[in-house]
């Protein structure tokens, strides 16, 4: 075996081992690497009082605004959770759109939000295209 060949195998083997190790570490850390939990996770874990983030869609028709206070429901279409928030909502905050909320689950089962972030989907299009898609009934749901 020539020295070049030996170096080639060494580098390839090194990358393979490194890739495998990274995959193992990332799998082990899976729970810590998610940015937010879904309302279903919340229902399963029921961790009242712990600071955490939840994400999902703002339920249609659930938003009630009172001055700077807002109440709405976040759903992942299986479970939903009520949210209380005081403050400025981001521009993309809309019913049916994705949101990520940081805060604590109160003892009354309502989530006290300290921060509300809007999550947007991967679709980009001009308004008229979106309108004609909606009109043609080809709209495949918001966000997610």
């Amino acid at each position, binding site marked *: 075996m020539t020295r*070049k060949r030996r*170096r080639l195998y060494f580098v390839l083997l090194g990358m393979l081992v490194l890739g495998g190790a990274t995959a193992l570490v990332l799998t082990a850390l899976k729970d810590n690497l998610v940015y937010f939990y879904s309302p279903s996770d919340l229902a399963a874990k029921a961790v009242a009082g712990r600071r955490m983030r939840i994400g999902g869609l703002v339920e249609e028709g659930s938003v009630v605004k009172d001055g700077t206070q807002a109440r709405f429901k976040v759903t992942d279409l299986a479970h939903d959770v009520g949210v209380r928030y005081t403050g400025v909502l981001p521009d993309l905050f809309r019913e049916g759109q994705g949101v*990520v909320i940081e805060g604590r689950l109160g003892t009354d089962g309502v989530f006290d939000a300290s921060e509300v972030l809007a999550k947007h989907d991967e679709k980009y299009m*001009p308004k008229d295209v979106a309108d004609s898609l909606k009109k043609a009934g080809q709209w495949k749901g918001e966000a997610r």
Partner: protein
Amino acid sequence: MHRFANPARFLRIASALFPWVSVLCALSLAAGLWFALAASPADYQQGDSVRIMYVHVPAAWMGMFCYSAMALFSAVALIWKHPLADLLARATAPIGAAFTFLCLVSGSLWGRPMWGTWWAWDARLTSMLILLFLYLGYMALADAFDDPERGRKSAAILALVGFVNVPVIKWSVDWWNTLHQPASVIKRGGPAIDSSMLLPLLLMAIGFQLYYVVVLILRVRAEIAEAKIRTLRLAAIHAAGGDDSP
């Protein structure tokens, strides 16, 4: 491959290509900017803030592309000891770092109005920040040793080890819940982006790619000259009586 590994031959080919690539780069960036800022529609959800995408997304692609190229050049330099491969890797690093920095800052400027935050420690944003640190580490390491050979070798190994981060960046949005949205262009089932917005995006991407080639040629020229200067100086020291002290 071996035929192109000769620095003199590289310089000849690069010099012939240079004016054409420069002109094409300027043209695609000019057209890209025109469509990005003026001749493309606002987004149905995000309004005019979507125009940040035409800088942000090509910069992100280039950040990952340059790192992949740097890792590949480093592998060739380590395995086959081609002198040119090492110069190419070193010349790529600052270009990739600039694009990655641009991606992070423009992303922050986009995230503030749309998401409601400048920064979030989600998997996509964090792995992109790590990419910037890898570039900075590579550049620091390549110059950190008195013996250029050792600096080259350590930097090349760092480039290879750091390469595991690139697939993590690309698929972070699919593997974990992130604030960042999933891929819009390079995804199964075709792009989820209207063609009127895909055009400026691709023009800017082509412009950035050609910019990489232009600056790469300039930087490799400088690196080759630098290597020759070092050899000449060493020869002069030996001619003066073998005194190695600077």
